[in-house]
Every structure is written in structure tokens, then in C-alpha cells.
């Protein structure tokens, strides 16, 4: 499957942001993880960048690989495979970072690559209550019926939900 270049993607993104702001609510950026196709609301995506040198930081969950300096902004990077509990895969020249803005803070998702931006109207998205026996299902906002495929729409806000990570609180006096 031919992967569009980062420049193409960013161009597409900007186009969507600028011209179709009224439709932005139903636009999704899709990306493959193993054999599955995932989608994340375009409204949350600020840009797509190539992988750059990651600085390791302490005291973060294993799926946070570190931080990058993106034009003076510190952006934590989350390996989407590790976040989904899949085995780690070496990064290659197709690996890209999807930068999302979630609740005032940026986060970068490290993905194997990105596919196209799709317009998926709400009535094409099924929202069953739960997909998984555990809490994992809450990450899924819905399943989108595409022509011959299914895209799993992610609840981006919950990707960085830290409620499942209980770090000891330090008194700050």
C-alpha cells in the first residue's frame, strides 16, 4: 500500500483545516496499526512530523518513549503499539508522529505510518457501549463502516488518561 508522504499529509491537513472547517467535526486521520485501521478526529491533530531524536525522561509509563523538542515545544511521544499492549516494533523511515492537542497539552503518537484523511459522517459510525470486557473499550469511540474496511475511531482524550497509572503522590510543602 502506497504511503503518502508527510508533506502531502500536512498539506491535506491544512487544506481540510482551512477550507472545510464546517466539516471538520466529521474528518478523521486514519493510520494502520498491524492489520487494523484506526482513526482520530482531525480537529485534535495539529500536525504530522517525521520522527526525530527522542530524549528519554524518567517517571513516565513505558508507552511514553520520551520527549522531542518541536520548535521550542516539549512534546511527549507515546508509542501507540505499546499503548495498545502490542509488541514494540523498530522505527523505520515510514514511522511518523501525529501531534495531537489534548486538553491544552500536546502529545505525539508514534505510528507506523499514516493513511488518508477521511470524511466519515456520524451515521456511518456505530457506537456500541463496549468493545472489550475491561476498560480498554473506553478508548474506542466507535467503529466506522467504510466501503470494504472498518476504521476504529479513537477517543483521543482518553489516550493520555492517567487514571489507570497510579503514581505515588508527593507532598509538596
Amino acid at each position: 500500500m502506497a504511503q503518502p508522504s508527510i508533506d502531502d499529509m500536512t498539506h491535506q491537513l491544512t487544506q481540510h483545516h482551512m477550507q472545510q472547517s464546517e466539516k471538520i467535526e466529521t474528518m478523521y486521520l486514519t493510520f494502520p496499526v498491524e492489520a487494523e485501521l484506526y482513526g482520530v478526529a482531525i480537529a485534535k491533530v495539529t500536525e504530522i512530523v517525521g520522527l526525530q531524536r527522542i530524549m528519554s525522561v524518567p517517571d513516565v509509563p513505558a508507552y511514553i518513549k520520551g520527549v522531542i523538542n518541536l520548535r521550542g515545544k516539549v512534546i511527549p511521544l507515546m508509542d501507540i503499539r505499546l499503548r495498545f499492549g502490542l509488541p514494540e516494533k523498530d522505527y523505520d523511515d515510514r514511522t511518523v508522529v501525529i501531534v495531537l492537542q489534548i486538553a491544552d497539552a500536546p502529545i505525539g503518537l508514534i505510528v507506523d505510518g499514516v493513511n488518508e484523511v477521511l470524511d466519515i459522517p456520524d451515521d456511518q459510525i456505530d457506537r456500541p457501549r463496549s468493545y472489550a470486557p475491561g476498560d480498554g473499550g473506553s478508548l474506542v469511540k466507535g467503529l466506522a463502516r467504510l466501503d470494504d474496511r472498518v476504521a476504529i475511531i479513537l477517543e483521543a482524550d482518553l489516550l493520555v488518561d492517567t487514571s489507570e497509572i497510579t503514581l505515588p503522590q508527593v507532598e509538596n510543602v
Partner: protein
Amino acid sequence: MNPRPEQQNETASTAALLRVSSDKIGRLMDLVGELSLSVAETINTPELAGLDLEAFDAAAHRLTMIVREVQDAATELRLVPVAEVFRRLKRMVRELERETGKEILLDLRGEDTAIDKLVADRLYDPLLHVVRNAADHGLEDNASREAIGKPRAGRIILSAAQVGSEVRIQVIDDGRGLNYDRILTKAREKGMFGPQELPERSVLWKAIFEPGFSTAEAVTTLSGRGVGMDVLNTTMKDLRGRITVDSDEGKGTAVALHIPVSLAFLDSLILRLGPQLYCVPIDDIAEIAKPDAAGQVQISVADGAEMLRLRDRFIPVCRLERFFGDETATALNSLSEMVAIVFETSTGPLAIAVDEVLDRQQVVMKPLAGALRHLRASWGFALLATGDIAVVLDCERLANKESAA
């Protein structure tokens, strides 16, 4: 009312003053930060490595110096004297005198101490809370004071002073002081200490800053409801500050707020530990030592705790790999192969072990946000001249955690 001399000075020099919105200054600060990073990136670009560029190096050096000065000048733009905050508190103390019926002498010191405008704007509420507590709970009423041979009027000293890169603001009263037993009983009720635990005084005093903590028998309209401490704690956390308390029963209480002068730039030392970079404010560092084999003590009975023997002192060593629970860290290097950075914290000296000291830099601070906000014992991230990112350590919280573990 006498016109205050400070105000007169201000009117006299109005012609030389400009009113600028803080947004504009904030934007300037951001740009100066980016400028200094870009300059450093340009100068350190790997393409120049190995080239003999005498004129370039001289020009680069000049450029670096100028950027540094621009940075300092930009930082100074935001510095204002604490006098304005103090003036507002002075009015509040008059109010308190009326409400409590106590005579209070307010002594202001170090009013021209400069502090970041952003800090000054947020200082009034927490300070008001501390002053209220001093007036309401600290000071005895006039009659009781006379009965125990103290001057009739209670005294509150409000003082500001710059100590290193911190501004220390103290509220000192000469009232009844804190009662160890009463506070301990109350703290135990709240489950802060076990029934057998006898915390150190300085540790116990911190309990009074816990939300919902109040030992005053009568809840007055002024204070004693245990609210307001939230404001104090939140503000101090946001401002990267800390609170210390000192008290002598019968003689009075001193509450000190320690706040960094500027929130934007930090003069610091860059340290490397494995793949990670750390950054420590230069004023926090007491000493840098290269431990030899005789200088390290391992205590197996205390979970393999390590001590550094430095001249005639034993200093606990904090291994950041352990502190942060890094499972990928394999066997720790022996201390003698590492560099020890020694801090003097309010809970005593503490050393951390790092692989090497890289550089001394004026770094740009970025706060912790989003997925990173739970990072412990850290002020935020520092953007380095190389474009790298370091974790800024807060050695006070590092030390607190260590003593609590």
C-alpha cells in the same frame, strides 16, 4: 493619611515610565527564549565541527554574550518591587486590627526586593492568608500579652529579601507560637501521623498547611476554617515555591515563602545520567564531589541505602534510577565511577549520583503538562542550547520523598 514617600517617587518619575501589557512582554520573553535557542543551535551545528573558523568563533562568542544580555534585560522587564503587595497587606492589617480588636504593629522590610510581575500578582492571596493566621491565631489579645510581660501591641514583620535566585518572603509574629502537642494530636486525628510517631518539629509544622487543618478552638470569621490553605498550596506549587515554618512556643511563629525570582530563565548545571539529561539550578548546588572508594558507604540493612562520606559528614545519596522506579536500569554503577552533586536542602544535605556534568547554561523553562504532569520532584523541562531537553530537578522534593520513604 500621610502620602507615602514611594508614591511620590513614582509620580515624580512618571514621565520615564511606560505602561506595557504583560502579554506583549510575555511574547517578547518567548521570542527571546527562541532566539537564544536558535543562536545556540546555529553555533553548535555539527556541520561546523572540525573546521577552523577563527573569525566565526569570535563573532559567535560576541553574539552569545549579547543574547545573554538581552535575556537578562528581558527578564528584568518583568521584575517589580514587592512594595505594592506589601501596601495592600498593610491596608488589610488595619482591617484586621478592627476585626480582632488587637493592636498590631506592622513592620515592613525589604520592600524594594524585585520579583517577577507574574509572581507578584499571585502573591497577595497566599500572603494575606498567612498574615491573617498570624493576626488571628498567632497574636494574643492585648490584655493577655501584658499579663505575660510582652509589649501590649502584637508585632508582625513582613520582610522580603533575595537569597540566591530565590526571593524569601517572611511573615514573622511575636505571638504565642505553635503548640507541638496540640498540633500533633490534631494531625493524628487527621491521620497524618501514626499514634506512636513523634515527628520532628519542622516536619510537624508543615501539617498546619494541610487543607482542612485548624487547631483554633473558636472558628472566627477571619480564619480558622482551614480554607485558604488550598490557595496557599496551589499558588506555591504553581510558582515553584515552597513554604517553611519555624516556631518557638510562647515567642512567635515565622512563616517563609521561598519563590524563584524569575520563572522564565534558570541558571543551571546540566547533568547526564545514562541516556537522560537533568538540570539543577546552580544556586541549589552546595558542592560537586568525585567520590573515591573510601568515600562511599553502603548500608544493606537499610535496603542498600548509600551514603557519601565527605570530609567529616555522611550525606545520603539519592539514585535517580531508583527514585523514579526505572525498571530498565540495570545494576547501578559504583559511586566511585560517578560524580556526586551535593545539595543543601531544608531537610539536610542530599547527594545525587550522575555520570557526568556537561555544562553550565542559562536554560529556558517549560512547565510540565499533559502526559508529563505527574513527573515527580521536577519543576519542568529545560530546553538546552543543543536543542536537547533536560528534566529540571527540585531537590527539595527529592529530599522530602527520600526522608519519607
